[in-house]
């Protein structure tokens, strides 16, 4: 729980359990979430190589009901995905999913029907080299982090190229393998400039405005995702530090969170039928001290189940709830913002 004069972030619950199979309840290396019109939570499962034939989107709700799922297999055919990274609903309610391997954006209906796709590999206008984060502004325009071209591209929702900005570099307005992207209520654009260890803020035309988390308190280490609440507070999944870093609307660091996951309903169901694991778990210390040679955020998170581990995306729903997606723990930690 975080409390400042202007902001309260309260842990609500955890949804998820590792899915070791090819379908059904649970997640397989989730990479992003998006929110449907009727309370649906869409979860993008990137999947490990052993399960890649079942690459898919799973749909559940806040009550942890697993509603349905869709996927068309691993590959570059219609509707198929290879290395999906991020997703967002466009203004027409269609789901856009980036794929950094096929260098395209796949478009689905919110029931999972294949609608269309756009993008090919390249470095010209309208082409991608490893598209990653995706966001849609209030006018329905689409922003994509074109990772290995180190730029942002702006499109209509039909995939018509509008503009681009950025080149490889570390100066303001330049990028190094950007990952996540978010927009605020004024349509300013925030980019998780991954290998420059910062978030950059731009106006909707790509004009550079400021750098967030580049140094000092709250300095970031390989940020993966960024979202902004209605009051302008900025939430960053600080992937390299395995934490959620929060900044106010002036870019001042106001909070840092390591995660506080609890058992999801699906996890509780598992322990109901595996009492031997529950009994030994109850006598365990799940917040251990770590040996010096493994004393890094990554290794600490690998041993501390409640902490964020592999936080790859942060998104905010229409009810001001914050979702942190953890690829390595196959779950989503949910917080309420007040």
């Amino acid at each position, binding site marked *: 729980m975080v409390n400042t004069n202007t902001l309260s972030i309260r842990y609500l619950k955890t949804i998820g359990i*590792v899915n070791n199979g090819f379908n059904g309840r649970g997640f397989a290396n989730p990479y992003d979430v998006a929110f449907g019109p009727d309370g649906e939570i869409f979860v993008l499962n990137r999947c490990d190589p052993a399960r890649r034939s079942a690459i898919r989107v799973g749909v559940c709700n806040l009550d942890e009901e697993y509603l349905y799922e869709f996927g068309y297999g691993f590959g570059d055919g219609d509707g198929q995905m290879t290395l999906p990274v991020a997703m967002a609903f466009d203004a027409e309610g269609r789901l856009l999913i980036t794929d950094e391997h096929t260098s395209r954006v796949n478009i689905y209906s919110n029931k999972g029907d294949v609608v269309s796709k756009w993008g090919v590999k390249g470095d010209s206008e309208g082409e991608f080299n490893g598209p990653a984060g995706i966001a849609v502004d209030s006018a329905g325009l689409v922003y994509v982090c074109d990772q290995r071209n180190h730029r942002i591209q702006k499109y209509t929702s039909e995939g018509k190229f509008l503009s681009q900005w950025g080149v490889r570099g570390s100066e303001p307005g330049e990028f190094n393998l950007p990952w996540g992207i978010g927009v605020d209520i004024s349509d300013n654009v925030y980019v998780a400039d991954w290998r420059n260890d910062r978030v950059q803020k731009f106006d909707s035309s790509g004009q550079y405005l400021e750098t967030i988390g580049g140094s000092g308190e709250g300095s970031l280490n390989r940020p993966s995702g960024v979202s902004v609440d209605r009051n302008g507070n900025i939430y960053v999944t600080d992937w390299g530090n395995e934490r959620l870093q929060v900044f106010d609307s002036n870019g001042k660091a106001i909070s840092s969170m390591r995660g506080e996951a609890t058992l999801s309903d699906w996890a509780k169901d598992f322990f109901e039928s595996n009492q031997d694991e529950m009994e*030994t778990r109850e006598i*365990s210390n799940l917040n251990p001290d770590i040996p010096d040679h493994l004393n890094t955020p990554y*290794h600490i998170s690998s041993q501390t189940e409640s902490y964020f581990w592999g936080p790859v995306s942060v998104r905010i729903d229409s009810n001001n709830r914050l979702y942190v997606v953890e690829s390595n723990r196959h779950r989503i930690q949910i917080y309420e913002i007040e």
Partner: protein
Amino acid sequence: MNKDVSLMAHLMRRAGFGATRNELEGYLEDGYEATVDNLLDPGESGHMPDDIIRRYHVDQSELRQLDGAGAYWLYRMLTTSNPLEEKLALFWHGLFATGYAKLNQARALLNQIEMFRHYGFGSFRDLLVELSRDPAMILWLDNNENHKEAINENYGRELLELFSMGIGNYSEDDIKECAKAFTGWTLGNAEYMSVRASKDSIWPYGRIAWHYEYRADDHDGGEKKFLGKVGNFNGEDIVDIIVTQEATARFLSTRLFQYFASDEVDSDGELVISGMMEAYFQSGYKVSAVLRSLFNSDYFKSDKCMYSRVKGPVESVVGTVRLAGTYQEPTLDVHSLWAQTMFMGQGLLAPPTVEGWHEGVEWIDSGSLVERINFAAKELSDPTKDGVKDIIRRVTSNQKDLSDPEKLVDSCLDYMGPIQVQPDTREGLIEFAESQGAVQIQNGQPDENASIQVARLIGMIASTREYQLA
């Protein structure tokens, strides 16, 4: 064939995974002994950065499963600037063989490998203490079941027999006393972790990595008699006694000799091993000193030592891929490389037993040989691969005419290693080169067809018996 180049190539086949001609030229500028020193004390190694790997490969970030963990280690071997660090870690992995099958915990194995990198060149004493604290080893040899009131001898026995002294140098009583000294050396949350490992449970949120824990209340603090010494020994005290033994010096030196110099130890080899043992004691049990003694010995540099070892499968895969110049960036199918090591009989992180792999000629049977040849020939006969392109460029540059098949074969053998082959192998390669027709060079450049011809010859050289020797 230039002797300096040939000797440096030999060193790098043994202390690394082979070297490209570009790499060899760099090492030759430093000279042999300075290269040995750099290999033994390289500072921070360069390799493909972890963040780049983890962003691309979710499985290598989570490291829940064996293939992803194996692929992660292969990336380190394929891209490291200090190949001896990885080669030595691979040696320790074979000697202190700990396998996935019982643990169901890939990350704990990789953490053990990281420990080998950290301690592998230093004091053998420190290495054995860390090994005794290693969570994967503790579960692998049941030291979590070694209690004050009921000892489990498994770790104590293997520490003496397989890890330090060798059979015949201690008694059954020594084993019991050793086991008592290691009571209380366990892993955190041992009960929960044991249940999860035994059921291969990944629920609810993936695996939880393991850590060492010392339970003083489960340690036998009583008097023990071990190898003639008496005291209230704890585990460190036992290791302190072990490392002073001549049998330990001989065991370690012999195993290092067999891995880095020659599968067979003859009378000349015995002399080298004596020198290595001396270095062991003089340096305060430093592994780097033992290896320096070996690499700088006349025996190691002799013709007798060259090509006297069969490459292990991992050496073979890594050496071939490094020569081909592939997998230098995250690559979708990298886990299939790990599968190759399995098909060839050396599944990385999955040794068959605590005794590790049977090495030398036992690496080769008809099935694994076919896998080796197919893999190497496929990797190296592709003229679009950067490393192959470089060999083709060197073979063809400044050449007006490559129509002489003998000259072409000798040039390819030179730039692929140099690789020394038997006369009948060379004859066979010349016949193959002839059968392809003359390689045409125009304006000092090979045309597309010429590149394909040279690449096929390179692939054919990778199929020879000699290519499988280090």
